[in-house]
């Protein structure tokens, strides 16, 4: 990983050392700009780090992204930790994580302190009720997208159903739902086949040879 990073830095002709204030400011910007969370913010982060700052190239970004999504937690925060550590070690990761979290921290603090009394005004309350209903639609949309991506075999359906039953029928803590599905998936799911593109490539090569 270190080797990769070295070549990436050379390729970008980059600065010897990223200063702490710049690291902080960059992630502060990212924290401020990432509205909506989740995958909506990946392009924003990519723009900031790869094109604006040139701290890493696209390949390294994708590698770091996959590491950030493999562990639980907010992607932006994980990414800040990883990149901060790459650029400036332990202190760097602390600075980057703080930079990512502080904007929303202050925004929420402001809302909670000064705007909360207005939440009971009929109009504001009705507005928030509409927003809360939209979140239900958003959840259904997320279920639709994930389902389309993940369901390929009956085993996938079975694993997912087990999670729903553990939480919905037996009323277990949602974390047990994750755990149950994880373990059942481990027992039940077949070895991963090669990705589709790799399979197509093999098939194409075989056809060309014959």
């Amino acid at each position, binding site marked *: 990983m270190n080797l990769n990073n070295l070549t990436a830095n050379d390729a970008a002709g980059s600065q010897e050392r990223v200063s702490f204030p710049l690291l902080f400011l960059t992630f502060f910007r990212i924290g401020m700009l990432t509205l909506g969370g989740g995958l909506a913010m990946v392009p924003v982060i990519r723009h900031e780090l790869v094109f604006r700052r040139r701290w890493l190239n696209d390949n390294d970004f994708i590698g770091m992204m996959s590491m950030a999504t493999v562990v639980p937690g907010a992607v932006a925060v994980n990414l800040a930790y990883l990149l901060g550590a790459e650029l400036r070690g332990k202190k760097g990761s602390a600075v980057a994580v703080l930079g990512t979290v502080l904007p929303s921290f202050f925004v929420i603090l402001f809302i909670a302190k000064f705007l909360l009394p207005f939440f009971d005004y009929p109009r504001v309350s009705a507005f928030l009720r509409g927003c809360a209903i939209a979140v239900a639609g958003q959840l259904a949309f997320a279920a639709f997208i994930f389902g389309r991506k993940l369901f390929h075999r009956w085993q996938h359906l079975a694993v997912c159903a087990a999670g729903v039953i553990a939480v919905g029928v037996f009323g277990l803590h949602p974390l047990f*739902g994750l755990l149950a599905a994880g373990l059942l998936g481990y027992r039940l799911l077949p*070895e991963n086949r090669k990705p589709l593109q790799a399979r197509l490539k093999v098939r194409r090569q075989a056809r060309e040879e014959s």
Partner: protein
Amino acid sequence: MRILTGLFVSFSLIGLGAYGGGLVTIPLIQHELVEQRQWMEFDDMARILAVAQMTPGPIAVNAATFTGFRLGSVPGAIVATASVIFPSLLILVALAPFAGRFKHNSHARKLRKGIQLGVLSLIIFAVWSYGSGVVQGLLELSIAAAAFLFLVIFEGKLHPLVVILSCGALGALIF
């Protein structure tokens, strides 16, 4: 002090389950804050989540700050926010050295696929548990369905925030 330890435990658990996107934390937050600890009513939580979705930053982190502030003022906000990111940072510290080996290991891959499916089960569960909380009649149901349809039809072209704000505006007009 007791509320601070409670916030620490609850939001560490929520952070631990925040796997693959912020929406999966909704059932966790509901379970921890409304059902388990009974720190707030469902409607209060739904408001906090709506605000957390509309403001910059990850939804779980925003919800943590908001809830922490309401229950324990500024110290509460700090503790809750730190707790929600703490488990993932701990795991990153522990796993980062083995990342390369981990990524191509078929055991790890199968486990991960299972957890991804588990995330989907939590979201499906949340469509029911959260949905039945906010949807009380035909009117609410049709707004939620419209939001869903807009997101599906304009997939990738429509920022989710636009849908949330439009539903909010609609709500302000008709409720």
